[in-house]
């Protein structure tokens, strides 16, 4: 899919390592500490107007990836290009200029709004930063944005604490839209909200996207939420993309056992249907130099080959890319043959 369009945002072999602080004993014995690899050579692209979801459990590196794209954290290696321009290590002025095209929606609508700014000032700030229009034009634009995000006008001069979580997240969305960006990185935009409010915000995001054709990188831990809004999905696990493809393909024909486990965790809408989430436990720590598949410690399909060579992100007949030796052998039938459901209760 991404090959058909010129890509707006491209991430190539992006890697982030965090140094681990050595203990005194380790320093004395001269033991070297491997850094923690939070994002492991991730490559992906976002086409204009599309929504790419990045899903994964906590610690999978999805938020770190988002923060690197936003320039809030420098990558260890790899490149990020925007509109064909390398933005990996922009100087501060260039980075500020880029925020006209690249905006952000944060997770927690309670702490991501300045408690001492009025709603209209919060929404206007990106316009102030980029000096767009006169003050009157900016105020007019704020009204327009509040209208677009269904924020009643009476909240204009309120402070954030006077608003509910859903309303605050609308403020966050309005702020992100203010400068007509080309891409919005939304880091868990609904996970802090009640389920009923989640649906409203997701509808709003979908509606906004229909109107403005802004591209979105939607970071979430919840595949159920992602399904409503995304075109493509990248599943991350332990810093790697383990599956990447069009949303329907990933949902109907998952090509990686981890994706399968994530999907099994979505409760069925029909309560009479069996709900049997597959328990895979916590990530098993592996040395950075380990040659095998990083998921094998939690995988019920793992074989000898999984410990010997790393699986590549290989194309599957269904249209997605997946990183698994076992399912590569039988991409069409593994899912039906899989006995995971019986393992689910362990």
């Amino acid at each position, binding site marked *: 899919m991404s090959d058909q369009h010129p890509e707006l945002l491209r991430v190539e072999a992006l890697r982030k390592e965090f140094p681990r602080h050595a203990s005194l004993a380790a320093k004395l014995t001269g033991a070297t500490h491997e850094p923690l690899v939070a994002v492991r050579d991730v490559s992906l692209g976002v086409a204009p107007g599309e929504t790419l979801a990045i899903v994964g459990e906590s610690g999978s590196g999805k938020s770190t990836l988002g923060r690197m794209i936003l320039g809030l954290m420098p990558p260890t290696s790899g490149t990020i290009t925007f509109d064909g321009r390398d933005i990996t290590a922009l100087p501060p002025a260039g980075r500020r200029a880029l925020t006209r095209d690249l905006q952000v929606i944060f997770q*927690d609508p309670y*702490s991501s709004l300045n408690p001492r700014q009025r709603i209209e000032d919060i929404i206007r700030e990106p316009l102030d930063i980029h000096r767009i229009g006169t003050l009157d034009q900016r105020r007019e634009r704020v009204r327009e944005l509040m209208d677009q995000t269904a924020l009643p006008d009476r909240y204009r001069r309120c402070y954030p604490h006077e608003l509910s979580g859903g309303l605050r997240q609308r403020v966050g969305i309005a*702020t992100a839209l203010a400068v007509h960006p080309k891409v919005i990185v939304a880091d868990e935009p609904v996970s802090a909200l009640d389920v009923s409010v989640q649906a409203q915000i997701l509808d709003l995001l979908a509606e906004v996207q229909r109107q403005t054709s802004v591209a979105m990188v939607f970071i979430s831990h919840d595949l159920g939420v992602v399904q409503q809004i995304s075109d493509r999905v990248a599943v991350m696990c332990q810093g790697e993309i383990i599956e990447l493809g069009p949303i329907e393909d990933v949902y109907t024909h998952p090509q990686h056992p981890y994706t399968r486990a994530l999907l099994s965790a979505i409760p069925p809408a029909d309560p009479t249907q069996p709900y049997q989430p597959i328990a895979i436990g916590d990530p098993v720590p592996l040395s950075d130099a380990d040659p095998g598949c990083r998921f094998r410690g939690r995988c019920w399909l793992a074989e000898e080959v999984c410990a010997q060579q790393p699986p590549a992100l290989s194309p599957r007949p269904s249209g997605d890319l997946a990183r698994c030796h076992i399912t590569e052998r039988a991409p069409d039938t593994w899912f039906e043959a899989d006995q995971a459901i019986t393992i689910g209760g362990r």
Partner: protein
Amino acid sequence: MSVPDILAADPAPLPGAAPPGSAAPGDATTARRPWLRTLTHSRSLATGLVLLAIVLLVAIIVPLLDPGGATRLQAQDSLAGPGAGRLLGADQLGRDLLTRLAEGYRISLAVSLGSVALALLIGCPLGLLAATGSPRLGGLIMRVLDVLMAFPALLLAIVVVALFGPGTLVLLLAIGIVYTPIIARVMRAAALETSRQSFVEAARARGASYWRLVLRHITPNSLGPVIVQATILMAVSILLEAALSFIGLGVQPPTPSLGLMLSAGRDFMASSPWVVADPAVAILLVVLGFTLVGDGMQEWLDPKKRAIAR
């Protein structure tokens, strides 16, 4: 704080204030009023403001009634007790104590306001810079301030006075220098905490410049503790000024000062207690006023708590 602000602190019901409970949440027209209502809800803030208002009124009005009265000697009134002509009595030289107290208040308030303003002026930028600048610069600033802080306040003030000689302006300067590291530390701690909040990161991700981050996002959300600290320091500086004047290193006679009056009056304490009691109570009132205001200020400054008080 200006005079009208303090006068507005009268806890009597304010004309035009909506009755409690009528403020609908999110209603923009009532959202502007709660700061007034908090004044009537926070007892310590209201009491403190009333005390300070009385002190300020005395300091402004009394000397106008009798210009020069603070230093006019009237031997026949020496150690006269409180009475009709002299509300608070007279000192050993026959000077009217009320007028001297009022003059002393003027000087004390000027010194405490001036020294705290000086400390805020230097300490706030230093603290902000230490919190938001490079770690090396921040470390350097804080170590220098740590050295200043290592001296006991009174000793440090005495050193400054010894260097520049006694006088009111030197006193102001000395107390200001003593306070600068205190203000800077509080500012830095508050700014560090605020910078970690996600709205600061959000502003950075939206392209806000360093100055916008510091001035619009970090500073307004970090000033609460600094202002509370400054108010408490005002109270302490009244005491510090009194202490330094008491030992002869502050305000010089014949200029009246609360500390000086205590010092001069202690010889007559047994026979004419009012000579000492007057300045002592005067110090108590103003210190209590500032302390109460400092306590109540935290609530008044926080829009969230303001909403709760509403």
